[in-house]
């Protein structure tokens, strides 16, 4: 089965599974042993269109940023070649993008970031991308007179470096350093998560570092300490 076919078939499996009826009050061991459909893998399904990064300029900016954070070189594909832009779009379209796990009740107190020692947000990641990407593009237009995506790579790197160390300020609507960190963690997630989520195409990220992926049993290897085991990675996507 090819990668795309596998993604679709897993999605169909999730949709087809019956919802087991679980009474609120439970007596006796549950007899229904089928998978809880909510716990089946939720693969990225590429319908060919983007759900959140719908504007061409936003996709171009994300692609340019991601490909400087993880560029193509002799160690493997770039972030966008590995599917990280599609990965991000899927993540922003789902619970992560909605900030579903966050405690978002206001107000945001003025001492929050200082006491927490890390920035806190009431805004969702989806909102932070919308604001941050627009501000980054405006910054490039203002300081360079061109789109971020059209700048030469050394200029792109200089801006990203400035965002990382706090010397570039994208304006009052954006915590610039935190937006850089958000993009960095998301591109790494795309590059190193299971390919089922749309990134890490051909397990390029795992091959780069030697992570064998979704193997579930190393008992045959555990005694071979200190050896290069040369294990090929496997993914949650069925091989055929």
């Amino acid at each position: 089965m090819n990668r795309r076919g596998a993604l679709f078939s897993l999605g169909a499996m999730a949709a087809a599974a019956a919802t087991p009826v679980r009474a609120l009050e439970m007596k006796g061991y549950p007899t229904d042993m089928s998978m809880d459909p909510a716990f089946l893998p939720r693969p990225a399904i590429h319908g060919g269109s983007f759900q959140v990064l719908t504007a061409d300029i936003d996709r171009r900016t994300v692609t340019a940023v991601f490909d400087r954070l993880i560029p193509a070189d002799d160690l493997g594909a770039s972030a966008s070649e590995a599917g990280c832009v599609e990965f991000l779009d899927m993540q922003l379209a789902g619970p992560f993008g909605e900030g579903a796990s966050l405690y978002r009740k206001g107000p945001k107190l003025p001492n929050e970031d200082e006491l927490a020692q890390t920035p806190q947000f009431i805004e969702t990641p989806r909102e932070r991308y919308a604001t941050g990407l627009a501000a980054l593009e405006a910054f490039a237009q203002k300081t360079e007179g061109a789109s971020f995506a059209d700048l030469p790579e050394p200029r792109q790197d200089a801006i990203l470096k400035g965002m990382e160390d706090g010397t570039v300020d994208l304006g009052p609507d954006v915590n610039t350093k935190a937006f850089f960190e958000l993009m960095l963690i998301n591109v790494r997630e795309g590059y190193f998560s299971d390919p089922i989520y749309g990134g890490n195409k051909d397990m390029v990220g795992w091959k780069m570092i030697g992570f064998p992926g979704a193997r579930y049993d190393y008992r045959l290897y555990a005694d071979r300490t200190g050896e290069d085991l040369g294990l090929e990675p496997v993914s949650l996507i069925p091989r055929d």
Partner: protein
Amino acid sequence: MTTKRQKADVVIVGLGWSGALMAEELTRAGLNVVAIDRGAWTDTSTHTPPSVDPDELRWSQRKELLSPPRDNTATFRNTLDQTAIPTRNWGVFELGGGVGGAGFHWAGMGWRFSPWDFEVRKQTIERYGLAKAEDGELQLQDWGVTYDELEPFYDRWERIAGVSGRAGVIKGEKTGVGNPFEGSRSRDYPTPALKTLRAMELFNDATNRMGLNPFTIPTANLSEPYVNPLGVSMGACSYCGFCLYFGCGNFSKSSPQACIFPVLMRRPNFTVLTKSCVTRLTKANDGKTVTGAVYVDEQGNEVEQPADIVILTAFMMDNTRILLHSGISKPYDPRDQTGVVGRNFTFQTVSGTDMWFEDDNINPFIGAGALGSQIDDYNGDNFDHSDLDFIGGAGILTLSRDGLPIAKANALPPGTQRWGSEFKKSYAKYYRNYATIFNQGCSMPTKTGYMDLDPNFKDKFGVPLLRLTYDYAQSDRNMAKFTMDRSLEIAREMGASHVNGFNFADKPFTTAIVASDHVIGGVPMGADRPTSAVNPYLQSWDCHNLFVVGASAFPTNAGYNPTGTVGALAIRTARAIADTYVKNPGALVEG
């Protein structure tokens, strides 16, 4: 309007390790038990089989097995004069999302505390004098139970969980292997220790050369197939490297699901109410007993479950918050150190060293959640503190837990660019050659480290969030620096080409950054009624039919993971209820 269910003998609030252990004991004793859990039913074959489990993004990054901050968080501040802020994102509170609690996604460290940990105040005064124990900041108090009294219950918990390890001291005799500093055990572990992996080899060789005493950490990740005393079968750990934050598809990580539910759920006198969140307890008119627990069900209805005996086995934050919200016992007041509920919050004081090696193959992807090597030479009071400016210490350990590639991507030698081709090159080289030494330090209570109800922020039911006020004691800060220096020495002896010491206690405490997830205290146990909320059987001093069980009861915290001690205390309390309390309901201890 609150509807009322039929009365039960016992209502248990929270079905994690504590609740499941107690429910097993009490249903076996013939009592009719209703457990209430805010989570959904979650189990191995239906929720985390091997086809679902090895997925870092979903379980470790997004933490989908945990209860999110949206539903369960707390506010925090360092000092009394600050306005507390809500913890909005993942941080030190790592509560379980489903039935089974954090016992389903935990790593599986199968520790006992040392004898010293139960008597920090007494033994510090005896060995070093009163001034060392009372430095003006610390608020030390003993547990009212000793290690020797708890030993049979540790043994029982280890048998139920099938803990893999190698005894260091049996019946007072050192075995010559294992941990020579541990409290005396009645017998060896039920299953042998797991294998020694590469990072552990390097650590063991180095610490042996330094004259220290390395041993394999006891794990609730089982080394071989095992049938526990309840008749439940477990499998052997496959070293899959997906453990902390994950379920276990092999039935080899001990959990309420893997060890207890198969028996408990079949008992006709046991009922679970899932997706039902207890918000408060109801009190009798005389104020001397409680009458039941009130919960909000999935549809938002408020329901009361009356019971003769009420047992709180929720996460420590919730045990504390339910008591405060129900107006049971006097809240702690940091200004004059009176009151008991919310008292003695402690954490863990963590430092350590990151290490990178050249041309080795650590192969971090082979691992088990709790697997590692440790030295206890600098833990507890195993070394002389006469000339040191602190008490206590840390378990200094290296882990062979996992090689999760998203989480490890920041583990690069200092000064390495975190992105671009330099990042790729460095990560390709060091992913398989990185290891860490983690100093799991004790945490001593202070007069101003406590919990109360937040005046500003509420949860989804409109109940005030818990407010945590805490910063590290100076004694703990000094300890963390001392143990960081020891870990740096070990790292150099291990032959690391790059070492980088870290110390979470050189900055103020924060709930937003995970140094450890072992938050402790709030309903301290003790033999001294004015300074404890529950007696040595975890029975409320004020309401004799209320028992508050879990890490909320620890008056001090040790340089070990808490679950084994939580389990032992829960079994001891359940036995006291079944053997003594039900025959003659009343205070088990005079106070």
